[in-house]
């Protein structure tokens, strides 16, 4: 079943890097040329009703947003050309902000790549290839930087951390590098995977497997124990712009510039991939895709230059 969910204006969900996480709050991001505008959309999308408030507006370029559960709080973390900002669950109050800049004199800096390690450590990448790890305490104050490491030569594209412990962190950059780290007191390199020239645009870690979506349209699965390539899928004919994982079932969602959205099943046993669902959103460059529930039965996609968020339901 497919439904359309219309957001305020197309600037709301445009942006070739609009990613958003939907748990019970549906969140839309506005990505105008010079402004970051955050808009929160509340549920009942199936009734085509929503309430929306413009929460925040600043000059800058958005790269990524992420909801995360830290202790008792549901936080909204935003990465952009302004660095990293942490908002409370209403998206009204900015609790913490850090520019994440290594070369203040050089222009074109941005933060990109967000991951929560364990329960209270936020990992943020940036355009110089460094990662900063912040500790978020119970009452969100003070948020302290605990590590800062140059992990890549080029801009970080995405970061993922294992949910089930082991404090594994995987990072990727614009040049196609892919590295696995372990966080103890600081980040230690475990392995560097072979580069595929095209960068990895989206990373997830699940059940001992690293799931990577590449700009070449490939999806690759690496084992965290074998540290080798387990499975490779020629999934799309163009750049994969976004990917998501439903942790309950092992469903993996990929959206691409080729106008297709595809849902895959990853096997918990051996990391093998099979196709579950495929749909074409005709003449649309897809830029964002997210599951709407942890079981993966519902998901939505966003497209370049369109106000419509298209929702799919099994």
């Amino acid at each position, binding site marked *: 079943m497919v439904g359309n969910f219309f957001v305020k204006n197309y600037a709301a969900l445009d942006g070739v890097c609009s990613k958003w996480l939907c748990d019970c709050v549906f969140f839309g991001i506005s990505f105008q040329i010079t402004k970051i505008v955050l808009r929160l959309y509340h549920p009942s999308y199936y009734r085509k009703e929503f309430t929306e408030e413009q929460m925040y507006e600043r000059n800058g370029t958005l790269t990524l947003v992420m909801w995360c559960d830290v202790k008792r709080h549901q936080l909204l973390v935003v990465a952009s050309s302004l660095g990293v900002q942490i908002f409370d669950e209403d998206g009204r109050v900015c609790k913490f902000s850090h520019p994440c800049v290594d070369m203040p004199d050089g222009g074109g800096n941005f933060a990109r790549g967000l991951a929560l390690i364990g329960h209270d450590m936020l990992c943020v990448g940036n355009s110089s290839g460094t990662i900063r790890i912040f500790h978020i305490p119970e009452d969100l104050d003070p948020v302290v930087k605990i590590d800062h490491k140059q992990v890549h030569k080029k801009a970080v594209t995405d970061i993922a951390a294992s949910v089930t412990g082991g404090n594994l962190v995987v990072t990727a950059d614009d040049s196609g590098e892919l590295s696995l780290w372990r966080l103890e007191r600081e980040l230690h390199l475990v392995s560097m995977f072979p580069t595929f020239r095209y960068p990895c645009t989206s990373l997830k870690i699940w059940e001992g497997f690293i799931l990577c979506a590449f700009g070449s349209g490939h999806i690759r699965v690496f084992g965290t124990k074998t540290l*080798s390539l387990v499975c490779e899928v020629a999934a799309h004919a163009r750049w994969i712009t976004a990917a998501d994982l439903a942790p309950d079932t092992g469903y993996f969602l990929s959206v691409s510039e080729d106008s297709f959205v595809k849902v895959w099943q990853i096997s918990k046993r051996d990391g093998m991939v099979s196709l579950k669902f495929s749909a074409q959103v005709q*003449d*649309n460059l897809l830029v964002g895709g997210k599951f709407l529930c942890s079981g993966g039965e519902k998901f939505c996609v966003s497209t370049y230059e369109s106000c419509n968020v298209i929702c799919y339901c099994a």
Partner: protein
Amino acid sequence: MLNEKFLIQLFKPQTVYNKTALRKLFEDLAHASIMRLDEASMDKLYDLMIMAFKYQVLMARQPLELILITLNHVDAIRNFVSAPALQTQIDKTYTMLMQMYAHLSIGEMQNVKYSLLNFLQGHRVRVSVFLRHKVQNTDGTFVIPTSGPVPAGCEIPGCIRSFDPDGIVCQTTHFPAGGEYAAACEPGSTEMHGNRGTDLGCNIYTVPATTDMSPMNTYYGNNNPLENIGAVGNGAKYQDLEADEFLLGKEELNLLMAQLLGSQAEQKQGFGSKEIIRLSLFGLGEEKESNPTLQKEELESKNFIRIDARTRTSTAALEKVYDEMTMQNEELQQDEDKEQDLLDLLDSMM
């Protein structure tokens, strides 16, 4: 436009130009010649330029193709220009382009593409040539093709491979991928001169002479029979619409000359000749004033035919035309009688 100082400023790392500044720059460029455009025409021209560029950026299959598209633009400029000083400027432009972009990784180039796409967002003007070639929908969005070659380094979707810990493929399965993609072509050349491997950035108003294939978004590989077509300047198989109209005009002029001069023309002009004909409609005196370099010998040569309409010639066809144009006074008086039969009126004209 390709002045070195301007280029140095242009190539400084900076954010994307704001829209007002770009529009102003475009207007200045358009008015650099004697051409003058009113606001509506300027708007249309700007929209056309933006939409054509948006089409090129959207259709680039992978980010490095933006460089090839830009090189197509530079190649086209090179073909318009003949003065050596200007050719040097174009060479310098090429060098600066390569210095800036050739070393960028695919990921960095994708960031550039995203910045451009963000800038171009919101422009949804329908362009007739795009609509005609069915690459644009009636709502202004572009068609995203699900066929054609995949970019270099990519694979036709549909295959799942599993590997053992030593990296050997141990199983291959297939799935229906949707679309009808073909294998990647050879990447285009980024040398100063070369086949760019893509039509994006070339003249969209040229029409392929031999096939019905749309000139839009065509990619050329070794197996493609249209391999040598592409950049302007290599127009062997392309039918240039402008050139055709020019030839048609010449044929018509030749016919006119034949009618005016009768048999004389056939002998002197060489009927059907494709030589350039200059038609001078004004007296010789004016001709000398306006064109002092014209030699007296040339004026009195056999190739220069004088026609004086004040004196009647012996050409029957021309006489008839002349008579038909002349209205007699008696006929004019009869026209005032409104009850006159229409047939009578026609008879009097014959």
